[in-house]
């Protein structure tokens, strides 16, 4: 099966090469057969990558310990669930998995547009094939996951050998979140290849700026949604597994995933300027390019070892390949832009500074500044070593100080933007739209202050969350009221109806609401408490309203590890609420160990208990307890963000369906004749 996998990968590279060269020939000659054969080669490439990936999974599931990658990342006692996850646990497999996910996107695009966009698709196919060639080159020649173990015999002949068992999977990866976090994050990274391919293709084909935006909006949102989900799952994994009581440590790997997310978010907003007003065409093209470059740069940072990271399991010396590919990609984009930039001239102008357009400009500014600040902070240790000869670390305190004000500014714009009309907002409209949200923001801040929350940033954050939430509720209320008057439906039905009629706009509001929840959760971090104590059996530890009584210690045997488990009774205000079982696991392979955090999670706070090890004398367990307020809002907010994105991806319901249910037929007909229903309901804010 290892030979089969290697052969499939090699064939995939050849097919990708043909899709690339044949695609260029097809563009030049416009020969229908060449166009078709290049597209078929693209499909074949994807099929062969699927085969190679499945063959590696098969090698894991059948415990084939003649393959080096399987030996390094699996063992016989590992459950099948984690054997599949072992595919992306190391450098070689994760890069194959990267190619696999990219192939899913490429195949979807090639099939979805097989009979459409005949002139544009060869360009798109060439760009996608170019990206695939790079990753397949790595898969085949640089970090092949199908290398077999061998020893040179006395006669000088290389003999294949197989180990009896493998080294096992990194204990930190043996958690359910770790099984779903990388696929989501990689789906985000690879997904941004599609808008990049369409943007570059449209530029190369000299298509005026709007078209590729329409074609790639959904692909961009899908990639963004996966990236969001991947980041949040990674944060949850860090929170539930690493045992330091937090979810985001500004580690270079975390930062690398945040960079394309920030620029992708900027793109998703500025793209509306182009769609509605034909503005910022150059900016949008470069935002998509930048997002793709940041995906590659992030991968380079995390795999090259150029910056030190806690995620050390996937470092190697393949950085030069990524730098080379990045240079080529940037050069191609610059040349394409310089040659065809005249086709990207904007047509519209700005009527007023108090307008939706201005808010988008500032939104993009803040997102991009945050992106650059995170990138420069991540790279600062490298720069400081270059310029001063000594490496200066940049840790959490720096990133928090720089990014918290930017985050609050962004939150403010999240509330302001949707309330401003396109072109110009009248003072009367400003008063009407901002009155209640501003009052609620002040009340929110005062309430937090009165409750004893005195951290300035957190109070501002809570106030802004109240402001943004109020603007969103007002938007739904006003829209639903119009629907309700016309249809007589209930408030809930009217809100659903409204959302389904303009999924993009109201899905966007749901996403914003999810972000508000996430910000509430982040603001709670200012009030975290923790206490660490050596605890003999029968002793208690106190934190906030909780007392934890260490009842006993036991051991449990699992096929892959032995766990030492602390058994705690949790009392809140002296009343028992639940049992918690933090544990330390000793894995049988590789003498590795890990912690398993126990969390009692409520909407108000998380009681987070870590068995940190034994005291220096080796007799007493050391327990670290954290009380983290509002953390659940982050995970709940993430779910809302994903739901909002899914709503925004849905096709909008035809307005006629709503109008059919109207009671007063005549005025509605008159209205429908006068203007489109979506305009009627959107009050100029769409």
């Amino acid at each position, binding site marked *: 099966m290892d030979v089969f996998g290697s052969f499939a990968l090699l064939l995939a590279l050849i097919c990708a090469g043909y899709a690339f060269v044949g695609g260029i020939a097809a563009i030049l000659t416009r020969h229908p057969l060449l166009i078709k054969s290049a597209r078929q080669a693209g499909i074949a490439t994807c099929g062969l990558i699927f085969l190679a990936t499945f063959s590696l999974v098969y090698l894991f599931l059948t415990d084939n310990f003649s393959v080096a990658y399987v030996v390094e990342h699996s063992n016989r006692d590992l459950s099948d669930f984690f054997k599949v996850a072992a595919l992306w646990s190391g450098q070689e497999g994760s890069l194959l998995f990267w190619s696999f996910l990219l192939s899913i996107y490429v195949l979807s695009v090639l099939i979805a547009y097989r009979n459409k966009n005949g002139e544009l698709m060869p360009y798109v196919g060439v760009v996608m094939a170019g990206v695939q060639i790079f990753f397949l080159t790595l898969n085949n020649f640089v970090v092949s996951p199908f290398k077999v173990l061998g020893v040179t015999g006395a006669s000088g002949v290389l003999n294949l050998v197989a180990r009896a068992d493998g080294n096992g999977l990194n204990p930190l990866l043996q958690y359910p979140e770790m099984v779903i976090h990388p696929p989501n994050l990689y789906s985000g990274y690879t997904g941004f290849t599609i808008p990049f391919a369409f943007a570059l293709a449209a530029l190369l084909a000299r298509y005026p700026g709007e078209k590729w935006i*329409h074609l790639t909006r959904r692909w961009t949102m899908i990639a963004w949604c996966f990236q969001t989900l991947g980041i949040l799952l990674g944060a949850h994994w860090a929170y539930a597994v*690493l045992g330091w009581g937090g979810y985001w*440590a500004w580690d270079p790997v975390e930062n690398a995933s945040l960079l394309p997310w920030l620029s992708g978010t900027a793109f998703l907003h500025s793209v509306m300027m182009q769609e509605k007003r034909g503005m910022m065409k150059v900016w949008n093209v470069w935002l998509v390019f930048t997002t793709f470059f940041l995906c590659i740069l992030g991968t380079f940072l995390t795999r090259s070892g150029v910056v030190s990271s806690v995620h050390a399991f996937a470092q190697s010396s393949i950085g030069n390949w990524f730098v080379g590919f990045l240079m080529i990609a940037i050069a191609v984009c610059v040349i394409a832009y310089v040659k065809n930039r*005249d*086709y990207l001239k904007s047509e519209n102008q700005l009527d*007023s500074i108090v307008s939706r357009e201005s808010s988008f400009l*500032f939104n993009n*500014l803040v997102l991009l*500044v945050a992106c650059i600040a995170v990138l420069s902070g991540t790279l600062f240790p490298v720069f400081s070593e270059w310029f001063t000869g000594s490496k200066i670390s940049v840790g959490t*305190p720096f990133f928090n100080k720089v990014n918290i004000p930017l985050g609050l500014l962004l939150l403010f714009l999240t509330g302001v933007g949707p309330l401003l009309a396109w072109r110009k907002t009248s003072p009367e409209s400003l008063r009407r739209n901002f009155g209640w949200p501003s009052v609620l923001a002040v009340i929110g801040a005062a309430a937090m202050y009165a409750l004893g929350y005195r951290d300035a940033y957190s109070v501002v954050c809570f106030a802004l969350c109240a402001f943004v939430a109020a603007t969103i509720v007002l938007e739904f209320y006003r829209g639903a009221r119009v629907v309700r008057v016309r249809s007589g439906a209930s408030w809930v039905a009217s809100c659903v109806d409204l959302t389904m009629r303009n999924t993009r706009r109201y899905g966007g509001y749901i996403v914003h609401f999810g972000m508000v929840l996430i910000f509430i959760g982040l603001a709670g971090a200012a009030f975290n408490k923790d206490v660490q104590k050596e605890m003999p059996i029968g002793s208690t530890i106190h934190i906030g309203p909780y007392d934890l009584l260490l009842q006993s210690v036991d051991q449990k045997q699992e096929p892959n590890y032995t766990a030492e488990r602390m058994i705690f009774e949790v009392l809140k205000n002296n009343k028992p609420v639940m049992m918690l079982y933090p544990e330390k696991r000793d894995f049988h392979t590789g003498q590795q160990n890990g912690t398993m955090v126990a969390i009692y999670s409520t909407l108000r706070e998380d009681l987070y208990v870590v068995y940190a090890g034994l005291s220096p004398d080796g007799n007493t367990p050391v327990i670290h307890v954290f009380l983290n307020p509002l953390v659940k809002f982050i995970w709940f907010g993430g779910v809302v963000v994903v739901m909002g994105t899914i709503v925004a991806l849905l096709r909008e319901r035809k307005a006629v369906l709503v109008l059919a249910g109207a009671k007063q037929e005549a005025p509605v007909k008159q209205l429908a004749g006068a203007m489109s229903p979506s305009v009627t309901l959107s009050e100029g804010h769409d």
Partner: protein
Amino acid sequence: MIKARRILGALLFCATALAPVASVRLLAQDSDRVRQIGGKFMCMCGCNQVLTQCNHVGCQTSSAMLKEISQALDRGQSETAITQMLVQEYGTAVYAEPPKSGFSLVAWTMPTIYLLLGTVLVIFIIYRWRKRAMPAPGTAAAPNVSPELLARARAQAERETED
């Protein structure tokens, strides 16, 4: 005289009774101070985490470093002196955030400069876009691309692409 002795006795009793409370409070303050200062340095065990957040099971480095800070505080050393001591021992990689001096100032000032420059740029763009006269439809292309060519390209794109 007896009254004065009684008052003195009562005061001594109160002082003795309150001493443990005061010392516990002092200890707590010391511990807070250690955590506050420890939060400004990285753990040097290789975990790449802030000293007070190192989560390695039984990490010897973080506890030794925290002990060092605690002992320095007991000796009455200032935060600056403790910083110098740790930098001398572990190098500049021990900083959790770059110092606000020398080359490290670049790290602190750049985000603000980006934001200020960006804001100026955005205001300039807004000003220019507002001043720009509204062109006739289809005449916004650059001189080397005629409006007809642009219109033809747009029509071609509309014809050849479907969502």
